């Protein structure tokens, strides 16, 4: 499943559409960056409420397929800019990470 297909099926809004054909392989939930850094895997859809520039760095270094900001968490302006520069997909949803994970689990 591509990030674009994920966006349609989970009704996510693109905040940064960088590489929408990227494959989503699995998922990870977390807001503490050093947990995410060491546990998230390549191709993960990362569910979080953290929308700052450091999250973009973690997503790049960890090769995440996309960041999904849950519960309408805000994306900082400098984070948006960095994501555009570095090609990181960022999406947003009003739902929480549990509900979104359940839906993703059924699709994978």
């Amino acid at each position: 499943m591509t990030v674009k297909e994920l966006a349609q099926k989970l009704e996510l809004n693109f905040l940064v559409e960088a590489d929408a054909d990227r494959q989503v392989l699995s998922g990870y939930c977390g807001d503490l960056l050093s947990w995410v850094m060491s546990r998230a895997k390549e191709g993960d859809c990362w569910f979080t409420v953290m929308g700052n520039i450091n999250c973009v760095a973690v997503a790049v270094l960890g090769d995440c397929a996309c960041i999904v900001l849950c519960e309408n968490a805000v994306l900082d302006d400098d984070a948006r800019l960095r994501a555009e520069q570095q090609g990181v997909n960022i999406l947003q949803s009003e739902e929480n990470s549990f509900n979104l994970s359940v839906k993703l689990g059924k699709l994978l």
Partner: protein
Amino acid sequence: MSLYTLHYDVPGDDFTRAGEASGDVKAQLKKLGFDPGTVRNVVIALYEAEINMVIHAGGGVIDVEVEPDSITMVLTDHGPGIPDIELAMTEGYSTAPDNVRSLGFGAGMGLPNIKKYTDEMVIDSTVGVGTVMKLRVNIKE
């Protein structure tokens, strides 16, 4: 014999740039053709150490040496030093201030992650002088 060396100055307290050195090292290692597993180990360890230098020590310098069988990273700062290294290495131990925690740091997992993803980790720290962290990742055949 070193094949390749890289040097970075890491500014202190600039969270918008934190991770730049790690990102560059990742790109260079990929370009040099290292396997994804090795690159991942290097990048996780280096990112955690780089961020620690920014958050806890006001920045510093990073030197990376790429050799045929290993990648060595030396991070040097002139921050406050680490008074009790064993304690600092404990999962969950953190002195990160609230403003940094609100960004998602401060789980106290950085140093344990570094240990997990490297083959050698040596911390040489003197209170009031600074910290030198030497990390080595062996290249698997």
